[in-house]
Each structure stands twice: as C-alpha cells, then as structure tokens.
C-alpha cells in the first residue's frame, strides 16, 4: 500500500486496487523476470487487521491469495482460472486428449504427440544434468575455499590441500598430510610452521578468511537476491502446496544462492549445504520449464516438476537418489502422483551420474560417507541404539524450540536490524571457538566421515589411538582390530569430542536461519555422530574391561572384534537428524545409501523410530513445519487435528454480522455495476448465480480475470461502454437496437467450482482443501446426485463420443 501512494511509482494510474493486474499486463512484453518466476503477483498480506499467524487457526476462505494464475499471459489472452492441482490436471487432460485425437490425422500431428509425451522426460534429463553440474561445481569450489583458510597450494592455486599433495612422496604416517607444495599461511608469511607464532598467525588468518567469506556472502545476498537466504525447504514446501512466491525460484536467486552457498560453507559456520541444494535444484527446474510450452503455462504440471527437482537436490547433496525421491515424497511434496515418482527417480539418477562423471573427489566416490566395515552387530547393542534414539529425539525437540525462540527474537527485537553484523559476529564466534579444537576446525562432512570410520591398522588419526596389544606386534597374525584398551591419544580425542559436542549443539541453534544460505542436515548429523561415537567408544571399553560380565560374555570374548564405534556414530547421526526433521523412511534410506551399510538397517530403524516418538512427545512439528508456522505461510498442515468439532456453517463467510455475499448474476448486470462491485470489495473471486432471487450456483469467476477482460474489452471491442450488459450465459438475448453490444464473459467463468454443504464437518472440509489443493470452496444446497456406478457407466460408454449436454437440458 505504501508503494501505491508514492507518486513516483506509477504515473497515470488512478485506482490503487487495479494496479496489480494492469501492472503485470502492460509490462508483460518486455519483462524477462516474469519468464522465470512462477507467475503471479507479489502476495499482499498487508491487511490492516493482521492476526498474528502463529496461533491462529483460521483460514480465510475468500482472501486466500490475490495471486491469480498469470502464467505469462499476453494482453489479449485470458488467463486460466483453473490452476489448482486437480483442475490444472483436468486442463492438461483436455490438452492431452486433443493431441491424442489429432494424432490420428496426420504424421505431423503424430510426431507432435510423441514429442509432447517425450518432453516430460527430456525436461527431467535437463534438470538432472544442470543440477548435477551445479552441485559438482559447488563441491569443488567449497572444498577449495575451505582449505584456503589454512594455506595455499604453490603449484596451482586452484588445488585444495588433498589435491595439492596428490603426487607428493611423503611416506610416513605422521607426515601423510604434509607436503612441500602446500604451505600454511604461517609458513608463507613467517617462514616457520611450528611454534606459538605460527599457531597465532594461522589462527589469525583463519579468522580473517572466515570473516571475509561471511561478509561477501551476506552482502551479495543482501544486494542481489534476499530470497537466497536460509534453507529454502520451508518455502519450497509452501510453493508445492499451491502458493506462489514470486521471484523465489528465479535466475538471480539461483546465481546468488550457488555463489554464496560456497562462501557460507567455507566460512566455517556450522551449516550444511543440503537444504540450499534442494532450492538450487528447484530453481534449475523452474528455469528449464520455460523451454517447454507444456510446463510453462500449466502451474500444476510445473509443480510436479518441482517435486522431482526436490528429489534431485537431495540426491546430489548426498549421492542418494532413492533417498532423495523418498525425501521429496515425505517431506516436501504436497501432491505426489505415481508418475512423478518414476520421473523423480530418473532425474535423481541422471543428476547422481552427472555428479559422478564430474568426479570432484578423484576416486569416483559417489557416496558421501562410504563406510568400509561390515562387522555384525549383536542384539544386546539394541539397548545403546535405542538410547541414542532417545538422545536424538530429545535433542531434536530442544533444538526446534531453541531455534524458533531465537528466530522469533530476531524478528521482533533490534537484533533483526543488523543482519550483516549478526552474521559477522556469529562467524567470529564460531571461528574463535572452533579453531583450537581440531574436531570443530574441520568441516562438518569431514568430521562425520572421520567419526563413521572404523579404526583399522591403516589409520593414524587420534581417534584410533588405541594401545597396541602385545600379541600383534610380534607375529603379525591375529585380529588386529580386536577391542583394545584406549590409549592416550584416544582419551585426548574423547574429551575434545565432548567439547565439540557441546559447542556444536549451541552454535547450530543461532546459525540456522541467518541471512546466508544454510542447511541443517550436516550439523545435526555431526551432533549425532559425536554422541554416537562417544557412546560407542564407551561401550567398547566397557566390553574390554568387563568381558566376563553377564552382558558381554556370550558374544564378546577377548580378542574378538565385537563393538564398532563407527556404527554407533552412524546410528547417532540418523537419530539426531530424525529428531530434528521427523523424517522416517527417507532418513533410513538416505543413511544406508550414504554409508552402503545394508546390514545396519535394523539399528537405524530402531533409532529413527525411537527418536521420532520421543520428539513427537514434545511437539508435533519438525523444523521445517515450525519455520512455516513462524513465518506465517498459508500451508495446510497435513498432521493438524481440530480439538473441537465444528461445522462448515460456523467457519464460512458471510457470518451473521457480515454483509451478504457479493455475487454476480449471470445476466442483468452492467459493466459499471460489475466494476463498482469489484472495486468496493477486496475479494479475490465472486460466485456467479442465476439471479438475485434464486442463488443457484452457475460458477465462480476470479477478480483478476474480470478486471483484465473488462479492461481488454474496453480497449478492443467495439462499443463496450459502462452501460453494456455483462453476460455469463451461453446464449444471450439479442440486444435492443440502440443498446450497446453485450460483453460475453462466459469464457472466464469456472463452471465447476468445488462445493460442500453447510453441515459438512470442518474436518472433512479441511481434508478436501488439503487433498485437492483448493483456494476456495463454495457452500451450496442440493441440485442432483452422482454415484460411483454412474461414473463407471460413463467411463464404459466413453468410447462413443457423446456431446456434452448442458445440465439444464437433461
């Protein structure tokens, strides 16, 4: 509204309420931003009687959204009012039927029908290729930039540490990470690599680089694409439920999100890149949809492509195509038909294959945390696994509460006025506290791989600092991997890990939700992996020192390798991630695709289920639903239940105190009257009835379509003036000779709006809204009945082409 009053904004427009439609119509020809948005006006939620969305359960039926389905329509072409999932699909079926019927006529039409069927698959292929390529690029750049904080490669500045030392000849375990080509900043600047000065210089350079990256990230986001901040998954959930956020999946958002994701991940902040990769994949899909007419004009089909793109995002983040499809099905999508399942899988596979062929890691490692052990686990270990599940559930509930509280503080207090400062302060804090501890200094993914790793003799990390038992040093035979007592190195690692756990738990709460792209899969998994590993090592030592006790006697004899701490880390990671996001099947599938450990499905499932139950006991929402509720998106939660039963009559409008329903009659109103009615109200659509006396329903017409068609008619059609009759029927009476010609608007009326009766319970009505993706539903009285048998008979008779009869002629 404030914008409307600005005289510089739009010269020459009279009515502020008519701004939106005509604004978009006139600029359509050269607005290239329209092309890549999911079309529609900016949502205007600036209603003056603003109930705080949090805590209010009402859904305004008529004011759902003022975004009509402006899918890039030119000035002359009327928009399609049927854009909810089910009606959108019926429009697509009509189009498909037409093509199929025409295809028998000529070869050209046949080719056209073939290419139409093929275009969906081609689009999926392109989405997979583009997302895979972008994800590969992001991976390479992130690895390089992360290592940039520590040093520089002298043989080629574009190599990270691992690749710089690729051909080096250092042979001992102690020096396995050092090579002369890679020099830390202390070595470059002061010439030494040991000692307090070197440590201090490294520390300082680490902080400087981290702050620089964070500053660049947040200023780029702020300057070019503010929608690129955050995770993106809550907003994509909302978009897939039918809501339109203009600009959220545009090309600038894509570019900025890609660039700043790398910067944010490299700056040492406790965040991951999975959520943002889902957003990137959806942006790619949205942009590529514009190459295909079939998808550019139909919102419902575009949403199917976006569902598949969400699967592609998770698939490239983890290298887990099946897990990605299940994630899209479980977490993100609102409407997931079987066809989308197959296409998502195809796109996810293509993306994973593209990522593999880019080969960023140099050893064809497609899976992020491949584990090499296949040690069996024992039934007794289910106890600790369930314990990890409980920990995961508790942490999930706690994290959601803390994070939402922090985000609310950010929204309402002065903290929210300084986003750039906030990012810099958090980065500085993270950097200062993380550098001294080697487990927090390394990135999240590296930490998780190290924790998942089981100690073999080939490892030299601190976590594998066990005391070598005497039997193996001599003959070289025997089980070198047997349970061994902890050595000094391992104790040091354990207390460092405990500190790292506390640090990561607290810092992730304030990091998620900042104004840089941030994901939370990796930090949650890191917390769980640390907890799991600690428990695993504890169990291992317990088994070693008490191998005579009742619990361990049967299966854990000395010298046997019975407890695998790496497995505990895996289970802990799954439990914590499940507690935060409340994923179930998709989490288990992602975990065993990530690790390749098919033997461990049962522990993973036990922990995931336990964590979900424990977390659900504290609050039913996962982190993404909590953010949706915090931001007030109009998203109908599938899990919500009503505490009190009520009828549709209690919720529908007009209520007792409201003015009567604003309706249009099918004939008898003039253009002036229609315009006056439309401008005097804020509704996004109007029912069309037979006459003012008998409110028998004819259809429903959207405000946008009315305004646009009246506008066009005034400009183009001859003789249409204020006194012209507006006719919504098929056959209008012939006008009198001196009366102006009537304006026929039957084409814009939706003749099949969904209806319920006034005594339908609200549960059923909400269910109808959810499952059909409706924006509005009319409340009517009885006219006729249609049963399942009628439908079956109709389908059986469908091959004989019967003309559609007008219902009133039956």
């Amino acid at each position, binding site marked *: 509204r404030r914008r409307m009053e*600005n005289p510089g904004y739009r010269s020459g427009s009279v009515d502020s309420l008519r701004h939106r439609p005509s604004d978009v119509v006139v600029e359509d020809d050269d607005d*290239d931003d329209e092309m890549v948005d999911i079309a529609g006006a900016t949502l205007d939620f600036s209603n003056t009687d603003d109930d705080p969305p949090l805590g209010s359960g009402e859904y305004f039926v008529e004011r759902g959204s003022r975004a009509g389905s402006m899918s890039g329509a030119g000035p002359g072409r009327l928009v399609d009012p049927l854009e909810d999932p089910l009606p959108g699909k019926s429009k697509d079926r009509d189009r498909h039927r037409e093509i199929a019927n025409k295809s028998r006529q000529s070869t050209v039409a046949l080719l056209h029908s073939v290419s139409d069927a093929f275009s969906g698959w081609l689009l999926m292929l392109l989405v997979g290729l583009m997302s895979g390529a972008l994800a590969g690029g992001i991976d390479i750049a992130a690895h*390089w930039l992360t290592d940039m904080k520590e040093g520089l490669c*002298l043989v*080629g*500045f574009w190599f990270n540490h691992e*690749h710089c030392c690729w051909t*080096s000849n250092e042979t001992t375990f102690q020096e396995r990470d050092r090579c002369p080509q890679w020099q830390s900043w202390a070595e470059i600047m002061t010439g030494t690599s040991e000692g307090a000065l070197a440590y201090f210089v490294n520390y300082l350079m680490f902080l400087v680089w981290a702050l620089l990256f964070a500053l660049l990230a947040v200023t780029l986001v702020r300057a070019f694409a503010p929608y690129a901040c955050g995770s993106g998954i809550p907003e994509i959930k909302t978009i897939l439920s039918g809501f339109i956020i203009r600009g959220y999946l545009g090309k600038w958002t894509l570019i900025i999100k890609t660039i700043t994701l790398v910067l944010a991940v490299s700056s040492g902040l406790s965040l991951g890149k999975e959520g943002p990769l889902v957003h990137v994949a959806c942006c790619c899909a949205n942009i590529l949809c514009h190459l295909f007419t079939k998808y550019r004009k139909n919102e419902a089909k575009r949403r199917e492509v976006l569902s598949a793109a969400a699967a592609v995002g998770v698939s490239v983040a983890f290298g887990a195509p099946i897990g990605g499809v299940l994630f899209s099905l479980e977490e993100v999508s609102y409407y997931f038909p079987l066809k989308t399942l197959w296409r998502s899988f195809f796109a996810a596979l293509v993306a994973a294959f593209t990522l593999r062929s880019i080969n960023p890691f140099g050893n064809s490692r497609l899976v992020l945390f491949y584990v090499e052990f296949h040690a069996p686990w024992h039934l007794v270990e289910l106890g600790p696994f369930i314990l990890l599940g409980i920990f995961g559930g508790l942490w999930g509930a706690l994290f959601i509460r803390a994070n939402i509280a922090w985000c609310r503080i950010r929204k309402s207090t002065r903290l929210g006025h300084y986003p750039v400062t906030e990012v810099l302060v958090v980065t500085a804090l993270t950097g200062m506290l993380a550098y001294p501890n080697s487990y927090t200094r390394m990135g999240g993914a590296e930490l998780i791989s190290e924790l998942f790793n089981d100690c073999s003799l080939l490892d030299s990390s601190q976590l594998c600092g066990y005391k070598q038992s005497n039997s193996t040093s001599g003959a*070289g035979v025997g089980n*070198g991997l047997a349970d061994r007592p902890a050595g000094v190195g391992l104790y040091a690692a354990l207390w460092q890990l405990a500190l790292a756990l506390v640090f990561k738990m607290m810092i992730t709460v304030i990091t998620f939700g900042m104004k840089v792209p941030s994901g939370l899969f990796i930090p949650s998994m890191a917390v769980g992996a640390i907890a799991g590993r600690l428990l695993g090592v504890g169990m291992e030592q317990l088994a070693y020192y008490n191998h005579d006790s009742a619990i361990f006697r049967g299966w854990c004899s000395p010298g046997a390798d019975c407890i695998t701490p790496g497995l505990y880390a895996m289970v802990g990671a799954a439990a914590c991630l499940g507690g935060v996001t409340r994923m179930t099947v998709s989490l288990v599938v992602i975990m065993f695709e990530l690790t390749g450990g098919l033997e461990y499905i049962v522990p993973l499932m036990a922990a995931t289920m336990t964590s979900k139950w424990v977390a659900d006991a504290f609050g039913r929402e996962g982190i993404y639903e909590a953010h949706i509720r915090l931001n007030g998106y109009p998203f109908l939660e599938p899990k919500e239940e009503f505490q009190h039963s009520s009828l549709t009559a209690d919720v529908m409008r007009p209520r007792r105190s409201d003015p009567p329903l604003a309706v249009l009659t099918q004939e008898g109103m003039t253009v002036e009257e229609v315009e006056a009615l439309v401008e005097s109200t804020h509704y996004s659509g109007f029912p069309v009835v037979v006459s003012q006396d008998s409110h028998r329903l004819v259809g429903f017409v959207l405000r946008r379509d009315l305004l646009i068609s009246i506008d066009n008619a005034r400009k183009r059609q001859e003789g249409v003036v204020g006194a012209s009759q507006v006719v919504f029927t098929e056959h209008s009476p012939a006008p009198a000779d001196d009366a102006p010609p009537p304006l026929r608007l039957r084409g814009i009326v939706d003749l099949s709006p969904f209806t319920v009766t006034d005594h339908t319970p609200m549960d059923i009505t909400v269910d109808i809204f959810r499952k059909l993706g409706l924006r509005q539903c009319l409340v009517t009285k009885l006219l006729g009945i249609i049963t399942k048998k009628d439908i079956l008979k109709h389908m059986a008779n469908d091959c004989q082409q019967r003309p559609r009869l007008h219902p009133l002629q039956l």
Partner: protein
Amino acid sequence: MYTCIHVSLKNAKSLICDLLQNSEDIRCKCICPPYRDIEGQIYKQNVSLKDCNCLHVVEPMPVDGKDVEAYCLRCECKFEERSSATIKVTIIMYLSILGLLLLYMVYLTLLEPMLKRRLFGHSQLIQSDDDVGDQQPFANAHNVLSHSHSRPNMLNKVEHAQQRWRRQVQEQRKSVFDRHVVLS
C-alpha cells in the same frame, strides 16, 4: 611437458603453471600398516590400473625376500584418478563470477549514483518519503530515468528491465531483512 609462467607476487612467490596436459592425474596409492619394527608407510606412484599393486608401487621395499609377500598382503592399494582440468576450470569460473558480481555491486552502490548525479544534476534526484530511511541508492534512480525519453529504444528497454529488477530486489530486501518474512 608443461609450460610455466613465473609470476612473482609481493608477499608470496607462487608458481602459476599453465598445465596443458597433465599426465599426473592418475595414481596408485598403497597404504601399508606397521609391520614388526617398520613404521606405517604410504606409497604413491603414477601408474596405470594394471600395475596398481604392492609389487610395483612399494619402492623401495622395506623388507627382504621372504617377508615381501607377508608385508604386501597387509598393504591396501587403491587406484585413483582425478581431473585437474575440471578443478582448474571450475575454480576459475567461480572466481570470475564472484568477481563480476562484486564489481557489479560496487558499481551499483557507489559509481552509478555518482554518474547520475553528474549527468542530471542534483535537483532531479527526488527523495521520496518511502526511501528516507533507506540507504540504498537503488530506489530513486528510476525517477531520474523515467524523465529521459531521448534515448534509443533498446537502451530504454534495458534500463527499464534493470529498474524493475531493482525494485523487485528492494521489495524482497524490505520483506526479508526488515520484516523477516519472505512474503511481502
């Protein structure tokens, strides 16, 4: 094999080599655990897949004749390859896009208002009520440009598109950064 261009920077002497074709993109890495009194070792060599085993890669062999087999059985050899060209191209592309974005940001924030002020004079920059609290100079540039009709059509279109984009970004910024909601 490859040509090197020496470039000496001020603080760090770095060798930036233009690698035309790197035959060093494959390697065989053998990790051998500690054996008796020999420490754990890692051996790397630039061999192809068929030669990637302990006998070819572990040089010099730390044990004598009859222990070689026992030693080699404990070693683990993996063949790895990478594409350094991909890495180089990706990093350079990333840096160039980042550089372009930074330059564009600097241009929009600092240079363009200065240029506009020089071209159109101070009086034409209207500060509307809305933008008083807003430090961004993005907002009022379109006021100035809407007065200029003398430019050719193409340039006008580009300016129009740019102004529309800027308005969008400003709206987005207001909703995301100021009101902390995504929807306006």
